[in-house]
């Protein structure tokens, strides 16, 4: 592995100061993405700032009912946290469907938000990739693109965002707390990741030196059921071909509120707003779910090998909505 300097930080301000808003410095927590990509020569930091000693390992319920998650809470601990299991089952399911036991034990909340694409051309330093090397082209466009995105794509990049956790957060709604040289600010989770557009190398809205310190989940939709469905080439330890995270509240057979986000098919964690509009105030029926699925994929753009993802994602949406409605019924039998 290439050489780099290393420093621990004891508190947030020291971490930010040590980072120095230098493009060649990277924060490290779990290291599961970072060290993998350093070994591949895709990421080339000159220095790492270890944030594991920062007081960011707590999960706490705020007075307004929202759940505040520290940056270094591991995926395992978050998935099994009693508040997450009880109030945000979608997040727990999504986390446990991702990676392996060992990786979940290491990977952190903020690190997962910052997870890089698994596009094989991005991970191959000898391939053309606009995301890794701006202006170099995109070998995925006419290459083997079975795993690639159909939503949010551009002429420059069709790389899929790989995270399951982020799909759940996109559906639930969340706020990121960012701390950097210019102070602390907050950002809606769904504004954080960028579409590739003409600048796929700009993956997110972080300013130089900024650190994600917390992810705060919106209060759960009252009386809602939830389901995360992940479809993939093997039953475990595999990235999604298509996934759907649904949160649905039903009253008298009608959908009062629905949240839907998709994974495995888009260039960022994909909140399906059109589908949500198609669900709102409609009967909780398969016909409604199918219309929502149609709406979610209406702008999909396939490439040579990944057109199958469009019907696959539609099916994932229908099934996730159906299961979420069942879950809501079980939670609220009187409705």
């Amino acid at each position, binding site marked *: 592995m290439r050489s780099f300097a*290393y420093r621990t930080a004891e508190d947030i301000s020291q971490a930010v100061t040590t980072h120095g808003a230098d493009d060649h410095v990277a924060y490290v927590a779990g*290291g599961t993405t970072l060290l993998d990509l350093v070994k591949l020569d895709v990421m080339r930091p000159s220095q790492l700032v270890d944030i594991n000693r920062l007081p960011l390992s707590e999960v706490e319920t705020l007075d307004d009912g929202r759940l505040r998650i520290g940056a270094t809470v591991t995926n395992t601990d978050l998935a*099994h946290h009693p508040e997450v299991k009880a109030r945000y089952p979608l997040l727990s399911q999504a986390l446990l469907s991702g990676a392996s*036991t*060992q*990786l979940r*034990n*290491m990977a952190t909340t903020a690190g997962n938000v910052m997870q890089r694409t698994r596009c094989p051309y991005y991970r191959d330093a000898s391939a053309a990739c606009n995301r890794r090397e701006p202006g170099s082209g995109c070998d995925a466009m006419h290459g083997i693109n079975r795993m690639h995105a159909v939503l949010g794509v551009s002429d420059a990049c069709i790389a899929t965002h790989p995270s399951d956790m982020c799909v759940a957060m996109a559906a639930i709604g969340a706020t990121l707390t960012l701390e950097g040289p210019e102070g602390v600010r907050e950002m809606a989770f769904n504004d954080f990741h960028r579409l590739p557009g003409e600048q796929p190398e700009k993956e997110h809205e972080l300013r130089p030196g900024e650190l994600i310190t917390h992810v705060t989940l919106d209060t759960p939709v009252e009386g809602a059921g939830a389901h995360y469905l992940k479809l993939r080439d093997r039953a475990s330890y595999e990235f999604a071909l298509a996934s759907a995270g649904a949160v649905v509240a039903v009253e008298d057979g009608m959908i009062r509120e629905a949240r839907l986000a998709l994974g495995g098919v888009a260039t960022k964690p994909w909140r399906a707003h059109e589908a949500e509009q198609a669900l709102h105030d409609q009967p909780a029926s398969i016909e409604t779910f199918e219309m929502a699925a149609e709406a979610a994929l209406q702008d999909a753009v396939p490439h040579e090998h990944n057109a199958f993802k469009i019907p696959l994602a539609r099916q994932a949406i229908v099934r996730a909505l159906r299961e979420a409605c069942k879950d809501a019924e079980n939670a609220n039998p009187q409705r």
Partner: protein
Amino acid sequence: MMESSETSAQAGETVTVSLTVNGEPRQLQVTPNVVLLDALRDDLRLTGTKKGCDHGQCGACTVHVDGKAVNSCLRLAVMCEGRHVTTVEGLARDGQLHPVQRAFLEHDAYQCGYCTPGQMMSAAALLEDERIAADDASVREAMSGNLCRCGAYKNILEAIQDARRDVTAGTGEGA
């Protein structure tokens, strides 16, 4: 865990990392870019932990850090200051095999054996983790980060479920 002092190293500079390995205090002399896997094998000569893919995809390098199974190929040695590391060499205690080791032997839960140390470290951790259910499907899911190219999965599962009886009976050492 947090008692240790600040660590700062330039690229290529060797620093001392103090940690506990298999119950004994040890020191590593490493540059920042050395992963725990290589430090265990090359510096401490604990070669039971295997290097497979070196990218967190195969699980051959699984060890316990503070009781949790992790991929030692993706953990920097400098990040292990003050930590408690257990490798496959630390599973047996007082001349007695860990229940998982005994069960792997009895159930022939390997063929070439290369993935076996990692398999056993994951198995030992999951048997101590109350959050992982005891049914076969949950065990297979919890073990999915350990690949076996020989395909000994069936016997590995049987061995783990057999070892569970010893561990829950309180005869296990807990690793």
